């Protein structure tokens, strides 16, 4: 810890680092939107071509996607909160949790974010928003019940670091842009399997439609790893390590943050409202079936043991 304390000349370097992170995150958000428009637009145009739509449809597709990307820039935080069933709370509702957030906002010099609670007994937390002025910090009921105050401060300090360096912008927009591709891929795959099993009767019409669906399914299968790669880009493990380090610096208690991680990992309950699109937002990976191929592909969090080890060494 000693080498991280702002009492040393390293303090000013730390601030410079934060400014670097902010501009890098803003760049990444633009990149994410661009990649999304090109990939999704290209894919949709290709499908349209196969289906036999006129070429003139392509510009409309791209315009719609650009509109969707712009919409997601402003609305993605609301979407992320809604799909997680988070409810906004006031200081009267949750005085202790609210005060912890207030204190850490003061300590990091950030405006007070909105405070949300998810009624789920699995302990976890996330932060979202497009910038610190429009940020929201969310904790599950399980987190508030199972952690003591110092541990809660550690977790919220980690989340406030995500807020301060604009991690939340990239992470949240990923939910809406890339998450929707993952979701569509999932949906399409299932639809294709379902469709192939039935309707043996109308073969001539069903045959060509089936061929199209097969092509789409194959394209999606190619696309899926790319999507996973995009999520990796947004939620590099580096980002979590960095939030751990600056969170520890903020709450002055890396041990409590490590304790919180241990408690959360040891908790056997899975988070009900988490899915592949929102998993990377959370403090600790909410998806429990760790060993499946898909989860390794989508693995967004560094191994907990490694995070705890680093925090204990501070």
């Amino acid at each position, binding site marked *: 810890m000693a080498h991280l304390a*702002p*009492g040393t*000349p390293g*303090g*000013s370097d730390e*601030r410079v680092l934060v400014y670097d992170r902010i501009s890098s995150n803003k760049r990444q958000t633009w990149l994410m939107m661009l990649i999304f428009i090109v990939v999704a637009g290209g894919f949709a145009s290709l499908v349209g071509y196969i289906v036999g739509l006129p070429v003139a449809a392509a510009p409309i597709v791209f315009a719609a996607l650009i509109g969707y990307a712009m919409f997601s820039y402003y609305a993605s935080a609301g979407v992320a909160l809604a799909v997680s069933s988070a409810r906004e709370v006031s200081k009267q509702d949750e005085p202790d949790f609210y*005060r912890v957030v*207030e*204190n*850490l906002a*003061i*300590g*990091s*010099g950030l405006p007070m974010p909105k405070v949300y609670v998810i009624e789920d007994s699995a302990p976890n937390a996330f932060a979202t928003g497009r910038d610190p002025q429009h940020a929201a910090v969310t904790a599950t009921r399980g987190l508030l019940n199972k952690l003591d105050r110092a541990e809660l401060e550690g977790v919220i300090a980690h989340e406030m670091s995500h807020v301060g360096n604009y991690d939340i912008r990239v992470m949240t927009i990923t939910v809406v842009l890339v998450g929707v591709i993952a979701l569509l891929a999932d949906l399409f795959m299932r639809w294709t399997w379902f469709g192939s099993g039935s309707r043996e009767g109308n073969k001539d019409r069903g045959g060509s439609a089936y061929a199209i669906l097969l092509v789409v399914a194959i394209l999606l299968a190619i696309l899926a790893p790319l999507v996973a790669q995009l999520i990796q880009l947004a939620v590099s493990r580096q980002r979590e390590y960095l939030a751990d380090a600056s969170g520890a610096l*903020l709450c*002055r208690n890396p041990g409590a943050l490590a304790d919180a991680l241990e408690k959360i990992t040891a908790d056997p309950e899975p988070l009900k409202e988490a899915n592949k699109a929102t998993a990377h937002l959370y403090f600790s990976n909410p998806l429990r079936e760790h060993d499946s191929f898909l989860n390794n592909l989508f693995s967004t969090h560094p191994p907990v043991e490694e995070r705890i080890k680093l925090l204990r060494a501070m």
Partner: protein
Amino acid sequence: MPLLIILIVAVLVVLVVAIVVMYNGLVRSRLRVREAWSGIDVQLKRRASLIPNIVETVKGYAAHERQTLEAVTEARARLQQAGTPAQAAEANNQLTQTLRSLFAVAEQYPDLKANQNFLDLQRELADTEDKIAYARQFYNTNVLSYNAKIETFPSVIMANMFGFQPSEFFEAEEQAREDVKVSFSAPPAPPPPPAANG
């Protein structure tokens, strides 16, 4: 000949740009310090505004503890008169100490300890103390970065030219510092002897 003029002009332009950038950097840093200070100031004012209430409440149950109560009121007045961060820090630390003895005294009055109003105020004060600690942390980080800037080359030249003064830190009270030391597992070692052959 025109090459020389271009060279001189280029050097001048670079110099002016460097000066503007450095000056703006210093101003921005100083502004951050002032903003961070107002963060502490808000909490100090809130703390001071809670004191009359708590003094009144305690008076209702323990009027004869006049000395303790007066010490708190006095410390509050000093906090409100403080002009510089260092004075405010000193007055605030004094207020913390007098409040500590006030709450120690309150321990002897079961009725007072059961008073809801007293409990609420006590919690509010504890919360304010936490917030002052966090605001201090943010303020001192900013002061450190600003002071480092005006004391290091090349911005030190600008700082001297335009009269940028170093800012004061908001110091934690001695007690708090000792508390931090206790949390380390190693026993408090005597300070290392100065290097003899330095």
